[in-house]
């Protein structure tokens, strides 16, 4: 065990998986000499050489498109895009090819690749550096979408993502990269995809979140300790999600709050509410609340505090739901 932040946990995972499997390669902008703009790939070029840690030309569709080709021909590429807001250039590749190659060839060809990128606001960044558009990827059959919330989680989930036979979009919460350190085991550590994590047991209200929302949720439920007992779920894999865990919890508590960093409409939160509606409606004691960003463009740093979810907003939503 070693105390690590999320950057260190991901870096260690990449290194271990590259040692374990020669077919794993990393490609992206500045991933080599520079070690990545957030230093996620620090030291890997020196260890594995430029054939396996590839500084690419500056072109997202090129990075993802060539990764798809590599994956079809026996490699396991891990593509890094510097910020989620730049990944749209590669959407054509992800949607039209990565997601459907297995289906359209009836299993003859497949694309075992990971698309890694930091996502999310709350770090007072430049324009296009604060995106949380996970729902775009969740809408695409054939993709898996995974969001770790802690260093330990990042290690277990990334290991599974790299070994997964299908394309995985791995979203790393920028805000959580260096926020906290925790004990992370050395050597193999896997967390299965499509399994939610019960963060804490409670009986009054189910609170569901993922990624950068988890520390905010934790703050909120901690401050309500003794007043409202919260059953907290970290969804971890957004697609295909662990709906059983969501439904089981809501059936127990009868109340739920969904916390989503992204704008309100058409998001993962809406899907969660729909699932609860389909499978747990008769257990509900209150309408399911969504705490989300408004349907506006992410503000520049001076206005970000209006936009970014605070523990206080989560507390208010939990209280409204609990007292409904």
């Amino acid at each position, binding site marked *: 065990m070693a105390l690590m932040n999320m950057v260190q946990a991901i870096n260690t995972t990449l290194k271990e998986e590259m040692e374990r499997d020669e077919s794993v390669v990393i490609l992206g902008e500045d991933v080599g000499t520079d070690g990545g703009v957030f230093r996620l790939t620090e030291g890997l070029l020196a260890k594995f050489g430029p054939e396996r840690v590839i500084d690419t030309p500056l072109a997202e*569709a090129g990075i993802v498109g060539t*990764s798809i080709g590599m994956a*079809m021909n026996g*490699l396991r590429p891990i593509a890094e895009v510097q910020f989620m807001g730049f990944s749209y250039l590669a959407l054509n590749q992800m949607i039209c090819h990565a997601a459907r190659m297995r*289906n359209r060839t009836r299993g003859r060809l497949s694309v075992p690749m990971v698309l890694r990128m930091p996502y999310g606001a709350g770090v007072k960044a430049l324009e296009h550096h604060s995106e949380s558009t996970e729902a775009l990827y969740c809408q695409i059959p054939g993709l898996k979408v995974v969001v770790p919330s802690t260093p330990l989680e990042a290690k277990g989930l990334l290991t599974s993502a790299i070994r997964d036979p299908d394309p995985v979009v791995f979203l790393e919460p920028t805000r959580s990269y260096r926020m906290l350190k925790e004990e992370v085991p050395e050597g193999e550590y896997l967390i299965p995809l499509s399994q939610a994590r019960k963060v804490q047991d409670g009986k009054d209200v189910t609170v569901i979140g993922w990624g950068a929302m988890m520390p905010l949720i934790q703050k909120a439920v901690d401050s309500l300790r003794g007043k409202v007992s919260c059953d907290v779920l970290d969804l971890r894999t957004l697609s295909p999600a662990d709906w059983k865990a969501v439904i089981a919890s809501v059936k127990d508590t009868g109340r739920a709050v969904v916390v989503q960093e992204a704008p309100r409409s058409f998001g993962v939160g809406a899907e969660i509410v729909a699932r609860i509606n389909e499978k747990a409606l008769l257990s509900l004691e209150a309408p399911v609340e969504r705490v989300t960003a408004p349907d506006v463009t992410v503000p520049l740093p001076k206005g970000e505090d209006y936009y970014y979810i605070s523990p206080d907003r989560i507390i208010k939503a939990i209280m409204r739901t609990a007292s409904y």
Partner: protein
Amino acid sequence: MLTDDYHPLKGKRLEVLKADGSVVKELDPKLDDATLLSIYRTMVLTRLADDKAVKLQRQGRLGAYPPTKGQEASQIGPAVAMEKDDWTVWAFRELGNLIHRGVPLWRLYLYWMGNEEGSNYVEGQRITPSAVPVGSQIPHSVGIAYAARSRKERTAVVCYFGDGGTSEGEFHEGLNFAGVWKTPNVFICQNNQWAISVPRSRQTAADTIAQKAIAYGFPGIQVDGNDVLAMYIATNEALERARNGEGPTLIESYTYRMGDHTTSDDATRYRLEKELEEWAQKDPIKRFRTYLVNRGLWDDAKETALNEELAAFVEEAVKKAEAYPRPTLEDTFKFTYEKMPEELEEQLAALRDDLGKEG
């Protein structure tokens, strides 16, 4: 090197087989008779299979289909130069290359009839499925080539696209990556003069498409795409370079789409009959036949026999494709992921219930 002798900025186009069926002696690849006859065979088969696909579409037995008539040399010449372990990454108008490389014709019909099994070629066959979003397959070919090299294979990747495709960003990104990485790629642009209704002159202000290679730092060459021997020698040289670790090549196959863009298109809306007539004079099959006749390898009796044999072969392929079972409801679910997630299992069960016996 051909790419020096026919450097794109010299304004020269590589031609081996002249319209009268004679050959430029110093460029003659001197293929043996059996190879020459196998080339002709695939050319005729491609033409017949293509005509048949259009007819089937008109009869409502096959979906929208992009006719390949006139581009047979552009597809088959490279196929002859390729080794079994090389890859073809194609767009959607490369029937001749696929047939020559051994993709069963009935599978290709099955694809255009609307069944995913049509892209499930022979096990181990190194051919990607068609790529409909124009140009998007180009980066794949570079990744495939990178992987081949990193696995120490001596294979190369032939990637096809059209003149329209060269306007896409993925053309630039793919060729740029290939140049930087020096991957074993052979890019073949089938410049058939039209991207649906937009002429080649409206795709790029460059004199040739071949010259774009120069900016990417590797050789390019413009080739008479209706000349199967020229396409063969150009590809052969490019493959050799790729296998020797000398990087990619861009081949512009200067050809012509004799048919419509697809069966949903009507080319009379935008192009002149006269242009079509001019290009008909340069028909790649007619030209190659004259060459074979001149060499004493071909005659009318052989022509009749081959046509009869291949027409019957095409009919058999149609029969086989039409007899192929429709996908089951489960088939439409089970290849989404390697293992069907619980969520999809539930959706499958629910849909099966809703559909009743149809499912």
